[in-house]
Every structure is written in C-alpha cells, then in structure tokens.
C-alpha cells in the first residue's frame, strides 16, 4: 500500500513532467530525428495505438521486447505524435528503468521528468515493493505502464523464451480484467543483437498486438509465471512473424516476384496485429 506522501510525490512528478513535456517531447523527437531513426509506416502505427487508447482509457500494460537502451523513447515516439505527447500526456507510458543506468545528475533529472520510476534489480525488497506499489497505484488511476518483460535487454538478440522475469505476471495477476495488454515488437533492420544504441540512420519496424491474456487457473507465484510466459510467448510469436516476413522483406537476399510485390505494401498490410 502506497503512503499518502508517496502518492502525492508521484502526482507531483506527473504534474512537473506534464509541464516540461512542452520542452522535453520536442527535444526527444529532435534527437530521434537527428540520429536518423525512422519508423516504418509510422502514421499507421500511431493511428492503431490511438484507436486502442481511445477504445480503452486504461489501465494499460505495454509490454515490449528490449534490445537497446533507447527503446522506451523510441516506442513512445512510435506510439504517439509530438502533439499527442503534449495534449494527451497521460497516454505516455510510465517506465521502469534500471536505477544503475542513471548516475549522471542530468540523466536522473531527465528520467524524473520523463515518467520514469527507477528500479534496482536484485535490490532491497523494501525498495522493490515500493516500486510495485507505485505501479499498482498508477494502474489504479488508469495510467499506462511500459514494461520489458524479459527483465533486461535480450542477450541473445532474440526474445528469450526460457530465461525471463516473472514480474510482469504480478501486474496481470493483481489487476484483473480491466487491465489491457499491448505487446509491441520493435526492431531495427541492422539490429542483430542487443546494444546500447541502434545504428545511426536505423530503420525500425514496429508490430502491435493488443492481447487479452488467458485467465490463469493457477494461483500465486505460479500464476505470475504463467502470465509472464504468455506475454513472452506472444512477443516471441511477433518476433517469428518479424523474421519470417519483414526481415526478409527489408534485408534479405530474396528478390523474387513475391518479394517485390510485398515490398510495395505498407507494413500494416500484413503485419501489424490488431485484436
């Protein structure tokens, strides 16, 4: 249970972030553009996200694969336009970055103003419980939470179906039917494994899948493991889809007629999942 003071501080962070979004959102967008990052079929991706967010105000659990340290801002950029970052600030998801990645005071401030709740993996249980309580509180206020269910960047470059964290399962187990899950698969054409940053000028594909997990018949820790496994399984399926279709389309040596026909289609023609 979150104390009144902690709730107030969280809402203060939200308010301050909202004010600063006028400056920070264009800053992030400019950085992404300067790095030459581009998202394929961006308008369709944003339209799909907008449609889903309008259909269901919240709470949302946004689960994504994790390959680089800038996946969160890239996903936020992919989901919402600059205008929506400012107008619909509550649609920007909260993030749970690893505390040890933010030692520079400027980055700590940036993190604070960008809807981040730092978490220390394998840290003190009390601190972890406090983070979970904050997340539960945010979800109870119909906010969005961006989580990387693998618990870290994919060390093999692929979604790891065996060694993943079960933390995401706890949110599903605790929040019941009202919580919607949006799975996002983000990958750059040249991203073969995990890295700190994507390559300069990288082109990304984003796949979206709004997903209702099957109610687990299990309880406690087993239910959490079951839910986490379902989400990881879903992300792995999206990855299979990506490698089976997009990777070949954008990088592969296939120059067949079918390939040329597929090339003319927008990404949304066959790949972005919808419920």
């Amino acid at each position: 249970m979150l104390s009144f003071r902690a709730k107030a501080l969280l809402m203060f962070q939200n308010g301050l972030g909202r004010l600063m979004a006028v400056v920070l959102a264009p800053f992030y967008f400019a950085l992404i553009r300067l790095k030459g990052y581009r998202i394929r079929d961006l308008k369709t991706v944003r339209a799909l996200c907008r449609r889903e967010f309008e259909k269901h105000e919240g709470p949302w659990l946004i689960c994504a694969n994790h390959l680089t340290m800038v996946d969160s801002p890239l996903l936020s950029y992919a989901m919402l336009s600059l205008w929506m970052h400012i107008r619909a600030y509550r649609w920007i998801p909260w993030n749970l970055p690893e505390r040890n990645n933010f030692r520079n005071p400027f980055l700590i401030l940036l993190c604070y103003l960008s809807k981040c709740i730092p978490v220390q993996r394998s840290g003190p249980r009390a601190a972890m419980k406090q983070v979970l309580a904050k997340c539960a509180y945010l979800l109870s206020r119909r906010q969005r939470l961006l989580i990387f269910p693998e618990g870290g960047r994919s060390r093999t470059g692929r979604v790891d179906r065996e060694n993943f964290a079960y933390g995401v399962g706890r949110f599903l187990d605790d929040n019941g039917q009202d919580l919607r899950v949006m799975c996002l698969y983000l990958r750059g054409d040249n991203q073969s494994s995990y890295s700190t940053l994507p390559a300069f000028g990288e082109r990304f594909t984003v796949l979206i899948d709004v997903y209702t997990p099957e109610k687990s018949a299990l309880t406690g820790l087993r239910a959490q493991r079951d839910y986490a496994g379902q989400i990881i399984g879903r992300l792995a399926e999206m990855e299979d889809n990506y490698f089976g279709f997009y990777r070949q389309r954008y990088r592969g040596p296939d120059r067949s007629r079918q390939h040329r026909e597929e090339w003319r289609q927008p990404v949304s023609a066959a790949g972005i999942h919808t419920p």
Partner: protein
Amino acid sequence: MDEQKIFEAMINILKPYTKDAALLERATRDTHILNDLKVNSARLVDVIIKCEDVFSITVDDDEADTFRTIGSAIDLIHAKLN
C-alpha cells in the same frame, strides 16, 4: 522433517540455478541465495516454486520475500511443515 534434511533438499533444488557448483559445496545457512550463490533474481521464483513442489507447501508473495538466505528459506519451510 528435520532442518538438516531440508538443508540437503535445498542444496539439490538450488543446483540447477547456481552457475558455480563449488559455491554450493561451501554453502551454509548464512549463504545469501542471490548475492553469494549468484542465482538470477528472476530464477528465485523458480526456486520457490520448486520448494513448494518438493515440500508440498504453499508460499505466498510476502513469504517469498523472506527467501533471502538458505537459513531463512529453511526456517520458513520448517515452520510450514510443522
């Protein structure tokens, strides 16, 4: 079940999750499962679930938080079995 038997069972349970088997040979009640045995924090849940299976007990979230050292795990299991 006495504590020594629970300790031996715990060592067997921890084996697949410990990267260095030599660490387990030197393990005592005070050995920290995450820090000393280098068990991945995400795998600690698997250890707890395995304990539930082996000892036919149920561990809830709050009790799972006490699974820090081998000794604290043994105390919890012992209390549940008796």
